[in-house]
């Protein structure tokens, strides 16, 4: 049974119909990459799964429970954690405080500040620094770490490489590698197609709120996704 099932999900963003009847499922331990042009509805979709955006129709099932109407903080207790676009750390608090404030709110689990520092060595020397003073890459690591502190069963990552230098992106993904390989269930939004295809088991491409391509990453070529990306019909079939 899939751990996450999204069923005919609809969401609006003001006047914009951002997500239109999206359905897909994620198996436990799987990494799914969401790709698509800006404004395709990827972020809104992730936020709907996390409960940060209200769905206007459809269902979100998590581990057999309907969570569609649960507020975000309740979904964290179920085991869903979103690393939001733009990182959104508590800039005035220290990195350690950012981690500790998230501790013990989700499910019981094994993540501690010490284990975080093992997984994200770049955070070790920065624990007492103000989160707002970190570099972009460090902030991204801290944002992921903060989400991990809730011991999620499903981790949603929104544009972790946005605004980072290539080196910083590599560092973030290097830290993620352990997670992705270690059986975590992850849905990530990634602009860099090549990287998405490399890290994910499956790829889902969105266009104007709809899913226009879905396939196993290994069997998917860059060209196929690019075609779906720009809405070329023949590629979808």
């Amino acid at each position: 049974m899939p751990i996450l099932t999204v069923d005919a999900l609809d969401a609006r963003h003001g006047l914009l119909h951002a997500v239109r009847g999206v359905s897909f499922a994620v198996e436990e331990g799987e990494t799914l990459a969401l790709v698509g042009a800006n404004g395709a509805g990827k972020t809104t979709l992730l936020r709907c799964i996390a409960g940060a955006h209200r769905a206007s129709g459809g269902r979100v099932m998590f581990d057999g429970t309907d969570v569609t109407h649960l507020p975000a903080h309740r979904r964290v207790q179920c085991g869903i954690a979103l690393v939001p676009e733009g990182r959104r750390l508590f800039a005035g608090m220290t990195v350690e405080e950012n981690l500790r404030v998230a501790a013990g709110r989700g499910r019981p689990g094994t993540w501690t500040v010490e284990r975080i520092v093992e997984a994200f060595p770049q955070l070790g020397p920065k624990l007492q620094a103000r989160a707002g003073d970190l570099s972009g890459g460090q902030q991204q690591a801290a944002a992921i770490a903060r989400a991990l502190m809730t011991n999620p069963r499903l981790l949603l990552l929104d544009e972790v490489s946005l605004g980072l230098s290539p080196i910083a992106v590599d560092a973030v993904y290097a830290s993620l590698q352990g997670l992705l390989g270690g059986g975590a269930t992850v849905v990530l939004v990634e602009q860099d197609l090549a990287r998405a295809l490399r890290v994910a088991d499956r790829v889902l491409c969105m266009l104007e709120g709809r899913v226009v391509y879905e396939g196993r990453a290994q069997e998917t070529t860059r060209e196929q996704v690019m075609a779906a990306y720009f809405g070329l019909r023949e590629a979808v079939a």
Partner: protein
Amino acid sequence: MIFLNQLVQGVFLGAYYALVACSLSFLFGVMRIVNLAHGSLVVLAAFVLFELADRAGLSPWLSLIVAIPAMAVVGWLLQRLVLDRSLRGGMLVPLLSTFGLAIVLDNLLFQRFGADTRSLAPYIGDLSFDSWSLTDDITVGRLDVLILAVAIVVLGGLQTFLSRTRLGRTIRATAEDPSVVGLIGIDARAVYALATAIAMAMATVAGAFLAMRTTFDPYSGGAQLIFAFETVVIGGFGSLWGTLAGGIVLGIAQNIGAFISPRFFLIAGHLVFLGVLVARVWLSGLNLRRLRVRAA
């Protein structure tokens, strides 16, 4: 030397202002709401304490133990019934709703208690008038010293609570970004309700000292709100120790004004407040926003 005494009294008066101001400042820091009913709620607490002392015969100190949790519940209700809904209405609604609430509270108190002024001074025995003479001209009242001590304990305690405890971190995180805390499992509404309850507990302490050190009536709330606000602006919005400094500056200004002529007591305070405002506008250009920081 009489002038020096005025300065000393100003410091103690300032400690009272800091006590009144800290809950206003705290609530603003957490929810970005300026609670226009703040003064009225302080006065409500004073009346609750007075009733407990007058009717139930409880000592004011014992009454505080009863009144603080009771007012915390009032705070919780205030958030759930008024502030929560107001916040969703945008910038203006919290101001309008809390102002409406202030009018309702003031007039309900008037309806119940009439225009008579009241004081808790008769219920605290020697404390209300005992004092120590430092020199021939300078005397400090025991109650004043107690207020200063309590102000330091409350402000320091709040500071420690916010920076050292888990709940304090939760409140700070929510204050920084209420739309993100849900993603790490924090219910922002519950945090807001808790913060309002804490603010009302502190307002009750302020109400107790308002009632002990002077007289009050149902319409005293407006003045308390203004003093609290001036204190917070002079001290810098959001900074807790700044609040104490702001209160002391205000208290000293008022006492120096009164030293010149009794009619200048309030005027001097208002002028210092406006002076600080003008100075800030000129120094920081367009924005006061950088000055109002977090609750910590």
